[in-house]
């Protein structure tokens, strides 16, 4: 396993908070190596647990997302000992940049699609755990790929679904503050169209409850 895993011409693409992404060649295909680097601030034991857990769960969830009808990169290889995942490189553009430069109508269409995808995940008991626009790529083939399932989990609970959407709302607020409301509305619109209005409404009520639970939210009951 160690020998096929040697990838000499890897080029650092992005140094994220949690993992580093390298661009490489995987038997003639463009691929990404995602390495979860040891975090020196936390105890080694805890660090290893967290990294191993996320390295194992991420590909599993990505695989199940495909079954749910949501595009994710293909997994080529997983090396738990080194907290390393090798996966397909998706040619395309991040939704984060795309949203900021898109016209209102295509922004809406994009957000509706995102909402639909999130609903497909939730319907199949998958929680992404880190829904930000940096974690979505619009590929050249027009499909939206979801990446970074490291904080994901399997759950059918409305609570988890609510938190998932609440996080997306928060991400839109902090990175797309000029038009986040319109975007989130479109997301919910797409979400309801897949989940059905009745189940979607239950999740929205949960989002409101989660927000009231947070500290210092204006609408929270006294």
């Amino acid at each position, binding site marked *: 396993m160690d020998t096929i895993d040697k990838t000499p011409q890897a080029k650092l693409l992005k140094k*994220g908070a949690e993992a580093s992404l390298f661009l490489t060649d995987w038997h003639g295909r463009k691929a990404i190596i995602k390495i979860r680097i040891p975090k020196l*601030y936390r105890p080694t034991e805890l660090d290893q647990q*967290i990294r191993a857990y996320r390295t194992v769960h991420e590909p599993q969830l990505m695989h199940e997302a495909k079954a749910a009808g949501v595009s994710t990169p293909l997994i080529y290889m997983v090396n738990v000992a080194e907290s390393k995942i090798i996966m397909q490189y998706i040619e395309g553009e991040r939704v984060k940049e795309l949203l900021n430069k898109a016209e209102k109508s295509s922004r809406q269409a994009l957000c509706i699609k995102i909402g639909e995808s999130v609903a497909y995940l939730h319907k199949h008991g998958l929680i992404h755990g*880190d829904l930000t626009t940096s974690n979505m790529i619009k590929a050249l083939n027009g499909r939206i790929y979801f990446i970074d399932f490291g904080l994901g989990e399997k759950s059918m609970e409305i609570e988890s679904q609510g938190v998932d959407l609440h996080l997306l709302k928060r991400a839109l607020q902090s990175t797309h503050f000029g038009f986040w409301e319109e975007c989130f509305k479109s997301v919910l619109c797409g979400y309801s169209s897949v989940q059905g209005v009745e189940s979607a409404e239950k999740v929205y009520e949960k989002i409101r409850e*989660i927000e009231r639970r947070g*500290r210092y939210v204006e609408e929270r009951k*006294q």
Partner: protein
Amino acid sequence: MVKVQKKSAGKYCLGIESTADDFGVGVATFEGEVLANKSDSYIPTEGGIHPREAARHHAEVADTVLQDALSKSGVKASELTCIAFSQGPGLGPSLRTGATVARALASYLEIPLVGVNHSVAHIEIGKLQKGAKDPVTLYASGGNTMVTAFESGRYRVFGETLDIALGNCLDVFAREAGLKHKKGVPLGAAIEQLALKSRRLISLPYVVKGMDLSLSGLVTAATTALRRGDCSLEDVCYSLQEHAFSMVTEVTERALAHTEKKEVLLTGGVAANKRLQAMLAVIAEEHDAKFSVVPLQYATDNGAMIAWTGTLAYRYGLVTPIDQSMVKLRWRVDKVDVPWIQ
């Protein structure tokens, strides 16, 4: 509601802080010199802060703290340009006591009142004291745990607790473990001392959700572990700290990577904890950012931060008419315009 007037300069601002258990009065110059910073804390006889009891305490000590601060500053009341007070967020009865004192002073002296957001004040005094320009700030106290950074006119929240605050998490566990609150020794400090005596990590929940984190389950699990009796109090204190601090550090690192800022500022009462400081220093170094810890007297709730932020707001004509000076219990940091930052 804040009314915008013409930009104007001034000399001195007196700030009143009373969001929770501390009643503080500070005096600052418009140039950023803190002339006085006095406070008096309410210590509960048992349990956590009782809002009504805290407010009663504040009302009792207000006069003395105010006089102490003024005489320390060497500024006469007649020389003050404006009165700033923390208008929120916080506990209603505590906030209202401070606001009442502020309104009375402003009306009597016939000078403007400036309502200040408590969280903004924490960030501003930290920047002033540490010479930080544009930091990612982790503000962790008994009532707040948030990671903020300036973006387009406001401090945006890049991560926060979904339930209880970090300080609250430590306090609740400490009380469950039977530790007693002593004057000058916060419960968090007691946990820090106990944690130093153990290196045995017990498995507890580690809950990071996107940029946010959740701490309530951690307290429950830590308390249960202690009651189970197969580990010592020291082990649980150590494990609780390692888990909770790793979570806030992970969230702070995400904000740092996302915003690509080059400074990290740690403030709030939990800033005093050496272990938390050490963890944040590691991520700051990894991202080539300068790390600063706000000195304790300015990291915990204090009047100086309100006075200083009052001068910033006043300079931009942001004053609060008395009839619009109601306290705002849930006033989020990202609802406040900060025109003094370009």
